[in-house]
């Protein structure tokens, strides 16, 4: 089918997008896998003639947001001692794994999610402001202010080298 064929062609870009969102290669491929599965299930909802890449990016991004939010909720509801310890342990591990991240990965990882996705779509994936804003369902003004803040943070983090 042409649909699978087109998805196959999009995959390298989707993986790149997922990597810039999640920073971790396994998480990124998990995200791509979920996105592909959802796309295949919902293929009827894609309107032929519209851009498949935007549709796929949107699916990928939505799953990512859901995953991040679900993870956040779990950490908030856990409040007994054991759970606290577990979270502290997790944080420690996360810190350690952060040490191994490359500068850019780490800087991206520290961005608030709404800045990260904006930066990723425009700076990494090369979408025009209008396309990125449509994909994220936000006004262009909102997108550009997130981009400005995201860039400032990255610039600070990466220092003069950037």
């Amino acid at each position, binding site marked *: 089918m042409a649909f699978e064929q087109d998805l196959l062609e999009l995959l390298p870009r989707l*993986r790149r997008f997922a990597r810039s969102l999640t920073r971790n290669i396994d998480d990124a491929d998990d995200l791509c*896998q979920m996105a592909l599965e959802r796309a*295949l299930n919902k293929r009827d909802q894609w309107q032929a003639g519209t851009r498949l890449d935007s549709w796929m990016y949107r699916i990928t991004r939505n799953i990512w947001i859901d995953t991040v939010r679900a993870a956040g909720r779990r950490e908030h509801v856990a409040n007994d001692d054991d759970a606290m310890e577990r979270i502290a342990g997790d944080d420690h591990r996360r810190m350690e794994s952060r040490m191994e991240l490359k500068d850019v990965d780490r800087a991206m990882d520290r961005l608030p999610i709404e800045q990260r996705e904006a930066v990723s779509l425009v*700076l990494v994936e090369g979408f025009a402001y209008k396309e990125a804003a449509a994909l994220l369902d936000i006004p262009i003004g909102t997108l550009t202010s997130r981009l400005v803040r995201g*860039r400032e943070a990255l610039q600070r983090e990466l220092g003069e080298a950037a």
Partner: protein
Amino acid sequence: MTFDDQTIMAYVDGECDALTVKRIEKAMTTDSALADRIGKARALRDKLAAHYAPVASEEIPDRLTALLIPATASDVDTSFAARKAGQEQAKRQRRLFGLAQWGAMAATLALGVIVGQYGLNGSPDSPFAQQDGALVASGPLENALDRQLASTQADDSGFRIGLTFRARTGAICRSFTGQAVSGIGCREGQQWKMISTLPGGVQGDYRQASSSALNAVAAELMANGPMDADAERKSLESGWK
């Protein structure tokens, strides 16, 4: 004239209107602080793009392609036919697979089948031998690939030649079908290196069964179309170069 961060960013992102672009570029010639801000903004963009760019050329994990390939497999034959007509779709498809990927698949598939049947390098009748870690044609298969022409081969040949074509790597490759195993061999030096092999060969009509799967693989590999009888003969006469 001063420009805010948003304008500088938009300039770097190619999102400014023509008039603003002109103004900025004029101001940059005299305002070194502005030139510096733009330089930094551009460097950041370049740095991010360069950092993630290699991901797009990584080999895609099987678990992802597996979601899409089963459904495309039935389509490959169409594009194989379409290739002859020179259609665009085939070209796009070709980019997706490399020889290395098929080679890796070939090794796993073929070794299981053949080792089970003959043992490697064990029997002079074995159609395969191992050489420098690669699987190459030997014995009856080597003979068939070396000498047999699809247009003149006997119906009861042990191995039947399917397609002969030039791969994108430049090598001549030939697909074959046999009782126990079918596959594609590509010329490397004086050897036929196995690029793809499928267990189980053909009973009866060799055009059925595995040959359609082989054609699909061949379609991924070939630079142009398959050779006709004339080109195949000339290729044999020039030593499959």
